[in-house]
């Protein structure tokens, strides 16, 4: 399939079918048949490929996200409380 054979966009049923499965495609969660179907569809369709690339880029941005809010150090008192809770849990486990 090439870009002259289908109208890329919401009105195109073939494109809609691809759009619905793009995340599963990128996550490697599709069956080999569905995967091939998408690869065949986007093979020669530059706008579709560009859309996939833009989706991949935004997923990567989410994976690299660092909150603007810095994480503060835990108060010593809480740290000690956590350690005591862990030790108590281990004792219950052993008992």
């Amino acid at each position, binding site marked *: 399939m090439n870009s002259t054979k289908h109208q890329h966009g919401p009105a195109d049923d073939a494109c809609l079918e691809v759009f619905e499965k793009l995340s599963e495609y990128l996550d490697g969660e599709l069956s080999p048949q569905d995967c091939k179907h998408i690869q065949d569809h986007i093979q020669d369709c*530059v706008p579709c490929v560009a859309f996939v690339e*833009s989706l991949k880029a935004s*997923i990567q*941005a989410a994976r690299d996200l660092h909150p603007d*809010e810095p994480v503060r150090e835990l108060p010593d008192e809480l740290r000690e409380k*956590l350690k005591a809770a862990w030790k108590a849990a281990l004792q219950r486990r052993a008992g």
Partner: protein
Amino acid sequence: MADLINPEVEWARRLLEGDATAFTPFVESFQSKVFQYTWLMCGQREDAEEVAQDTLLKVFESFDQLREPEHVKAWVFRIAKNYCLMKRRRSVFAPERELSLDELMPGSMPGSDSHGIAASEWVPDARELPEQGLLRRELNHELETAMQELPENYRSVVLLRDVEGLTTAEAAEVLDLSVDVVKQRLHRGRLALRKRLAGYVTPAGKVSE
């Protein structure tokens, strides 16, 4: 030998065996991860910090109930999710609503031709941006804002899958959802973020107003 892919798993195993040297790295790793999650779910620093601390305390209080250390991350986030639900204040959450595929697909793509995507549809690859550069920081800030504005049912899935790196099955277990629902929400949430970022940064690298 340490688990090179998931050091948290190794720390959890060692903590279950009573190895105190695993305590600090475990706490520091999860403090950061859980705060990131609660911050993006709660939207208020005080709430996020309180929920993150409550979560850590519950984690250690319940440590004897950790049956599968290989799934420690999902176990911790399940506790964090429950505390977020208890704490949540409707006023700071984006309203629950369904996102339709129609509103998330590229529209008429003005400016595009048959050989490319519209300038307004382009999303930069963060890995190609300078680590400390302005554009990368702007992109990060815009993404954080976009994330907080996502309807909660989509945000929780995107956070667990893409930001925290849980598998689809783990995210489904944490959120008490079916795998199919997680996949659907993840996809629509990703498309919504893509749409938001696409309108924000242009291929020339200029942050739009």
